[in-house]
């Protein structure tokens, strides 16, 4: 327990150790630590950025999906509209065609009627003339009475 040269020796030893630590141990370790700290911070920032980007991408994808759905329903609505239009057009076409056919048929019938009526009229005239001849027992001068005959035929 005597104070002796050990005191000085310890001081010198201590100083040498501190110097060695100061020169060769502390700087590389602290540098590595701060470098790693920076690296980790960068990594975390990158991760956060990545997450943010992913969120953005998801949002964008959802938007696109929504757009696509909207467009699809638009297209379907248009198609339905167009289909009903086509059906309507077809109906209209059919109706006009039917009316046209009917009109044609009506005209033909009219013609037939007229023709039959004409024919009938002529027959009636002949019949009437022959009937009148029989009643009068004399020949009717067709030439003399042509005008009255025509008038008669016209009345029929």
């Amino acid at each position, binding site marked *: 327990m005597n104070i*002796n040269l050990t005191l000085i020796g310890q001081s010198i030893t201590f100083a040498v150790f501190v110097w060695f630590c100061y020169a060769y141990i502390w700087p590389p370790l602290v540098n590595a630590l701060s470098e790693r700290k920076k690296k980790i911070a960068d990594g975390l920032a990158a991760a956060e950025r990545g997450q943010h980007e992913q969120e953005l991408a998801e949002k964008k994808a959802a938007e696109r999906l929504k757009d696509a759905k909207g467009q699809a329903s638009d297209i379907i609505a248009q198609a339905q509209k167009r289909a009903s239009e086509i059906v309507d057009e077809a109906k209209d076409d059919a109706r006009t065609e039917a009316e046209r056919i009917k009109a044609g048929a009506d005209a033909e019938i009219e013609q037939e009627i007229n023709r039959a009526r004409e024919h009938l009229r002529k027959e009636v005239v002949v019949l009437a003339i022959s009937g009148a001849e029989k009643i009068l027992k004399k020949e009717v001068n067709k030439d003399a009475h042509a005008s009255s005959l025509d008038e008669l035929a016209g009345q029929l």
Partner: protein
Amino acid sequence: MAEEALTAGQYIKHHLQNMTYGQHADGTWGLAHSAEEAKEMGFMSINVDTMFWSILLGVLFLWIFRRAAKNATADTPSGLQNFIEMIIEFVDGSVKGAFNGRNAIVAPMALTIFVWVFLINFMDLIPVDWLPGSVAWMASTFFGADPHHVYFKVVPSTDPNATFGMALAVFMLTIYYSFKIKGVKGFAGELTLHPFSSSNNVLQLIFIPINFLLEFVALVAKPLSLSLRLYGNMFAGEMIFILIAIMYGGGWALGIFGGFLHLGWAIFHILIITLQAYIFMTLTIVYMDLAHQVPEEH
């Protein structure tokens, strides 16, 4: 474990004596064979055991940390590297928390103190007779020395020389930086113009010696308290280990009881050796911080 030839008192004394190398009274150089001889050698002698262990442990510390420093990269650390970096971060945090000046030497010094003092204190946990017993056995076997006169103290921090030596180095640094940062005038002013000051010149002149006395005591108390705190704690701890070790010689019942005591005290001592290393480091940082404080204007 106390040898039959030794009484308990002799056993304790034997354990408390350093292996001292110096000049004998008859003029020859050699190891002291008794406490009296060691005392007679005076200042011009050296405690071989203290120097050996402190240098060995210091070199161990530097070697391990140097290896870690060489391997240090910004990549993922592993194992020992991680542990070393944890210590570095801890010390760095302590320095940043307590030291406000700008001085690159403070943090490495704090690290050196913390790890070195811890390793030195750790020697206290090695059973008190192992190393001294081995050295005594080797000395008697290979050199024919009387084992009772071979002294060997394993824990350098139970030698006041070691703790005073460290505290002295720290003290010198604080003085050096006090002069460097504050200037001669600033430092002198700090020592003489506090705590009493007066605008009256005559009164101030009276105050100066009083202030100086107070401040000088405070200044010198710093290294003293720094070293005595460590020394006292470690010495007391060592003493308790020695007392417990004596119980091993007192029959098997006392021996088993001593074993439990030994275990308990050793576990508790783990806390003390770490705490003392931490306190030594923190106080050094604080003293360095005080040395770096620029004086306020009065």
